[in-house]
């Protein structure tokens, strides 16, 4: 495999635009967890003309709802959830300055258009490798929507979190490229 690219958050638009579909990355710094219910609430907050509970400018959101941490551990198992369920909300959050998303699975064309416009990237983490991925999470701190339990917005301090750029800021799709040579039906 090609050399892995190290990324430290916050992720500037300039840095995000340099990433290309297929790049393997190791992310360090703080990333924010948010999934279905948190996205719904964030968009409702924006609809009311209010500010988001967390400033996501140049930040990366990880579509995650972890298992509870066992005593002595910062987090439980922590793999990516299906990104497509956030498609209805993602363009609004990208408009707020979000530079990166980590999840698994395909994205809607509207999300890709928004990513191209704002220079955002979409990373995939290996779906189902939750216990392995948790090893790169050093700290998990709930910041907002604590009542949502596993769906709360939290700050995750990560070191060398492994991901791959699947859709870059030009809209190139690595899932599509990766499948083509093996498609025989």
């Amino acid at each position, binding site marked *: 495999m090609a050399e892995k690219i190290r990324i430290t958050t916050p992720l500037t638009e300039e840095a995000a635009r340099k990433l290309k579909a297929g790049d393997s990355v190791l992310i360090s710094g703080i990333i924010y967890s948010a999934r279905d219910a948190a996205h719904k609430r964030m968009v409702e907050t924006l609809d009311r003309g209010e500010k988001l509970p967390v400033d996501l400018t140049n930040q990366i959101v990880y579509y995650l709802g972890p*298992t509870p941490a066992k005593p002595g551990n910062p987090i*439980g198992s922590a*793999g990516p959830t299906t990104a497509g369920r956030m498609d209805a909300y993602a363009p609004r959050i990208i408009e707020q300055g979000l530079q990166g998303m980590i999840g698994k699975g395909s994205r809607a064309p509207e999300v890709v258009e928004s990513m191209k416009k704002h220079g955002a990237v979409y990373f995939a983490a290996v779906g189902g490798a939750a216990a392995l991925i948790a090893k790169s999470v050093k700290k998990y701190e709930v910041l907002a929507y604590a009542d949502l339990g596993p769906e709360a917005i939290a700050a995750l301090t990560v070191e060398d979190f492994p991901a791959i750029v699947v859709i870059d800021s030009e809209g190139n799709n690595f899932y599509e490229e990766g499948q*083509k040579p*093996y498609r*025989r*039906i």
Partner: protein
Amino acid sequence: MRSINVEEVTQAIAKLCINACYYLSEDVYEALVKAKETEESPLGRDVIDQIVQNADIARNEDRPICQDTGMTVIFMEIGQDVHFEGGNLEDAVNAGVAKGYTEGYLRKSVVAEPLFDRKNTTNNTPAVLHTYIVPGDKVKIKVAPKGFGSENKSGLKMLVPADGVEGVKKVVLDVVKHAGMNPCPPTVIGVGIGGTMEKSAILAKKALLRSIKVRNPHPEYAKLEQELLEMVNKTGIGPQLGGTTTALAVNVEWYPTHIAGLPVAVNINCHATRHAEIEL
């Protein structure tokens, strides 16, 4: 008549929930190790390698294989000579789920009402419970926590008899293609053929409880399982980033059906095809 205190059911289910979520079953683990050799895509092999490493970490450190520890599906085969005492059976089942998910540090992923409030029940109850009355005085409990990355990508089609084998294959292919990389492949695919609409769906779920090393005892269905597996592994989806291992196995279950019908249900499971069972 044999009496069983429902407390015994609660304790058994709590343990099964934890075991199913921590320990990848041997049949799936072996299939993954084998797929690491046979997968044609180098990146695909890398993904499978990470999934195998993940299963090792989960087993060695008693952690959930996946953060989505599912909605708890439970099949109970209850001997007709059994009498439950000490409380309501369904309450005891749910008490076991609550205990397992709390004590095992499993994620609570169930909302009390699906459309309006969607408020988390905070203990993963209620379970989806299927009970069957069978001869004898034993109780067999199978716990299968089901993640929704894969559940959401399942499908059901009411075919007509003229659609035949080719119709069935097309339904499976359409569901798998539509699912793409979302259900965390390599997957295990359960197919239910026959019965009524709801029967086919339950058969597809039950198919996921069978070891992937065991083929359907009916030779024509065993052959169909093999053909379906070869077909889905030609889609290119592979282990998420493209490749030749989209599924590890296709398990088919069937049931008699109506002269006018051919129901087909496809239930997709991620590689963490979680199931644990016990006989009381």
